[in-house]
């Protein structure tokens, strides 16, 4: 089988939901601008694209219907290009990449755009009509709030608040340093809004200190340790990667970032959903025939500092190589858009930093983990 590569990555700036610069931008418009940006920057022939697969965690309202098809039409993709919306909550757009890989494996296409979108300003978490099943609610933590699961992980792994805050400070520091050094310029597609062009992330709080964070109140449990400062913020954003066969990319001179070596999905207890990356990463690394020691780049989504720390500990990850340009606590976590961001980011970093293997992994509400192992292409 021809191998599958990441042949391009783009994202919108990320902005805080409700108060940020993208709050007034429709999610379908936002994603369409990123898709157009990706095509422009990679130079891929749009007519060659088989399908536009879009991840979205709450696909309703303005990001409802089959939003992928709508984004395709908004982006002026050729009518021949398909559109499919995928929901695996926070793992949605990473799943989109995995689906594309599977389609390529069965010979159903050579080039796919795998995107993600979430406007947490315009579609609330839980959606507009949360209507849980009482029987399930009573027998499992399927509907538990994410903050509570982060508290559970902190308790289970005995992660003190100060340790969580240290990770958050580091995340902010790395993200602001990367931004100041212009390291996000290549990946960000400036977004047109009614108030002008938005070119930079609005989420990063560079000056954050441990003292600032120590003063915050617990956000989810009055007696708990997780605060707004050690959680990823509600975020508006979109992301997209170009997934193609290696031979297609080479034949068309596309900028190959990395090869997808292996992928994995796993389930876990909903009440500690933040531990999801552990099993999924282990499975993916096993499939790739590597161990954590072989990783040169890790993108581990920081839904919460507590779960990120737990995963780093259990997987034995090197913090120096993990979230090199900062993580979601600083950059933001627009649910459905995060998977494509961290796969695209890991691939870009592998290219920028050098090295052989990269891992992108994230936890998923309801109790799942998802992981992708990337390999450098010589």
């Amino acid at each position: 089988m021809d191998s599958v590569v990441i042949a391009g990555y783009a994202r919108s700036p990320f902005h805080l939901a409700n108060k940020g610069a993208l709050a007034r931008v429709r999610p379908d418009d936002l994603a369409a601008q990123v898709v157009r940006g990706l095509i422009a920057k990679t130079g891929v022939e749009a007519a060659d694209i088989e399908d536009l697969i879009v991840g979205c965690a709450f696909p309703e309202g303005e990001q409802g219907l089959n939003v992928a098809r709508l984004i395709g039409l908004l982006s002026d993709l050729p009518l021949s290009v398909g559109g499919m919306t995928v929901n695996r909550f926070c793992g949605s757009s990473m799943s989109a990449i995995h689906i594309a890989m599977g389609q390529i494996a069965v010979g159903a296409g050579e080039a796919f755009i795998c995107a993600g979108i979430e406007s947490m300003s315009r579609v609330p978490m839980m959606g507009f009509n949360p209507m849980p099943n009482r029987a399930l609610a009573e027998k499992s933590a399927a509907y538990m709030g994410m903050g509570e699961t982060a508290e559970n992980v902190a308790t289970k792994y005995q992660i003190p608040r100060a340790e969580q805050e240290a990770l958050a400070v580091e995340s902010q520091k790395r993200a602001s340093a990367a931004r100041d050094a212009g390291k996000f310029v290549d990946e960000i597609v400036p977004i047109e809004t009614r108030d002008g062009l938005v070119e930079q992330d609005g989420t990063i709080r560079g000056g954050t200190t441990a003292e600032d964070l120590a003063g915050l109140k617990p956000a989810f449990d009055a007696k708990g340790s997780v605060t707004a400062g050690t959680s990823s913020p509600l975020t508006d954003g979109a992301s997209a990667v170009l997934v193609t066969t290696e031979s297609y990319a080479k034949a068309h001179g596309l900028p190959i970032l990395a090869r997808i070596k292996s992928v994995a999905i796993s389930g876990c207890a909903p009440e500690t959903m933040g531990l999801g990356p552990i099993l999924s990463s282990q499975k993916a690394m096993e499939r790739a025939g590597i161990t954590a020691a072989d990783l040169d780049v890790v993108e581990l989504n920081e839904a919460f500092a507590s779960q990120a720390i737990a995963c780093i500990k259990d997987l034995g990850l090197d913090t120096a190589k993990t979230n090199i340009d900062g993580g979601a606590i600083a950059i933001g976590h627009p649910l459905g858009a995060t998977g494509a961001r961290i796969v695209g980011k890991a691939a870009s970093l592998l290219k920028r930093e050098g090295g052989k293997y990269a891992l992108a992994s994230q936890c998923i509400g309801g109790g799942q983990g998802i992981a992708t192992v990337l390999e450098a292409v010589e």
Partner: protein
Amino acid sequence: MTQPIQKVCVIGAGTMGAGIAAQVANAGVPVLLLDIVPKDGANRNAIAQGAVAKMLKTEPAPFMSKSAAKLVETGNIEDHLEKVATCDWIIEAVIERLDIKQGLYEKLEALKKPGTAVSSNTSTIPLANLVEGRSEAFKADFLITHFFNPPRYMRLMEIVTGPATASDVAAKVEEFADVKLGKTVVAAKDTPGFIANRIGTLWIQLGLNAAFDMGISVELADAVAGKPMGVPKTGIFGLVDLVGIDLMPHLQASLTSTLAKDDPYQAIARDIPLIQKMIADGYTGRKGKGGFYRLNKEKGRQKEVIDLASGEYHAVTRPAGPRGAAAKGNLRKLVETKGGIGEYAWAILGGTLAYAASLVPEAADDVVAIDDAMKLGYNWKQGPFEMIDVLGAAYLAKRLEEEGQPVPEILKVAGERSFYRVENGVRQHLGLDGEYHDIVRPEGVLRLSDVKLSSQPILKNASAALWDIGDGVVALEFTGKMNALDGEVMKLITKALPLVQEKYKALVVYTDADNFSAGANLGLAMFAVNIAAYSEIEKLVAGGQMAYKGLKYAPFPVVGAPAGMALGGGCEILLHCDAVQAHAELYTGLVECGVGLVPGWGGNGEMLLRARNAAKMPKGPMPPVAKVFETVSTATVSKSAAQAKEMLFLRPDDGITMNRDRLLYDAKQKALSLVEGYTPPEAPEFRLPGDSGRVGLSMAAEGFHKRGLATEYDLVVSDALAQVLTGGEADLVDTVSEQELLKLERDAFMKLVREPRSIARVEHMLETGKPLRN
């Protein structure tokens, strides 16, 4: 002809200027707010912008809604002064320096349109000085408009015109201030301090002097000069703490330099060493380290008070203040009380009332202006002449004479007579000419109190009354304590319905009281609970539901006209009206959950309807339910009528009246406008989310509980509320009728009213007036 006022400019973004700009914006009128360019910093509009930003965080809020703040355009006087050409009224509220004001007017004269009014908010500088050097045309457009702090909440505006002021310009400003800004406009003469501050400053000085001279403690002084005189309970020392002790020397200097040398104030103005020391030490009142009172943080915020002799603080004690009739408004008993109290009361009252009496006609043309100024500018329950009527004009004159004090002319004119009387159903005041004159309400002002002087109620019982307010419209008035609602109110409504249908065109629900209604009479409900008369309670709930639905489906229009608080059942009656004409200061909400209950008089269904019909409400069964659940479970209360619209207690097209005195008239007009072709609404049906929705709501509530924002018992109460709002046992595909929803509401209410923790909440509310967070 001058332009009607469609845009206003306020120059000076200090507390007063910014607050005035906010009130203009509250009226829905665009306003330009300018200040100087700051000495440092790149943002040349920083001062005006900072003032708006600060107001958005201030409590009590200067803005009635966030959208009002968007009507304020900020700028600076160097770059943007020419924009005054687009404004129809320019209000100057800059520093009290004649040279600066005159310099500004010179620039304005070159830039403004002819006929654009210019007014100063000065409280100290005579109009004659302000317009020195200006053209006749400018003088014709110029006047003084003196607002009180805070401009949104204080209803008084003193207006001073000069000999050259054009009457149409003054009339235009007066009308705008009245109708749009909601102010009672009192005409004052161009004399120092105008009316309210001139009398108020003397009153404060008398109170301070006498306390120091007579060795009266601060607590006793305020206990005498507060409630017994119909003055806010802060009394005099508490008031000075509130406005700032450091302001006193400025007021004193200003008045002593401008008042005539023989003015009585000159004789009593003096520096008090302790006060000078307090200011020097930073004890400037509530805004400083403390004042005559302070909260000692080292002692757990214990309230302390200063000893006027030693200057030391000690814990506040409860003095033996006036008792009996002397404490309840009988001023003669008060000034004749033995043991220091009477002497102290007389020192203040005798001096203040005599002074006020001496100001007709020097500062105001009649006694009504002076009384209005003190009632609205200092929140006195009665004005000086109303107090003289209580004390007796002859009594006051006699005591002044005995003490060798001059007796003001108007007291001599009054003799044995009172300053106010009612003749043929019309309230009249005594003029300097010795004649009584009708008090004429301005066009568009209707007071129920005036109606009552000239007519008898159509219906009346212990808790409510029905009045004919003319043109075929009746007013339903609540009359119980705090306008509480009980079975009697419901009975009167039930009785009124056929009567109105037969003989009248429309009904307005209105009361002259400060607060529309504090809600159901909880005391009565608790009495029934204590004797386990649950069936009586259920009857009361069902009776209220029926009465309110009766209003809703009556074959004539019903208009609610609330002002102040309209809580619980008081909010629910408004939800059943065809339309509401609300005073801008409306504090309404369904607060039942705060006392461990749920709305029981149809409020749930009416709120669901509002939410269902609200613009921008997302589709699906949950959004309206979740919105109502959030508002009601947290007992949210609006802080303005504009906010009540955002919270759905009012409909988008419900009216808002800025001037309290115009509320009843406006409501009556609204009711009359609905009469022709009126058809009552049809009973709605609901599609509600059922059990799944309830799980969703309880999960949200549990999240609040975990965060420490809701108590465990809040969860019990909110679950009962969720049971109603989600339709009980009904499934998503079922239709729930209004009657079925009312039954769910009754059941939830009756379940909670038996719960000991709900009873504890109600009892706590009755005892303390505050919610119990159990």
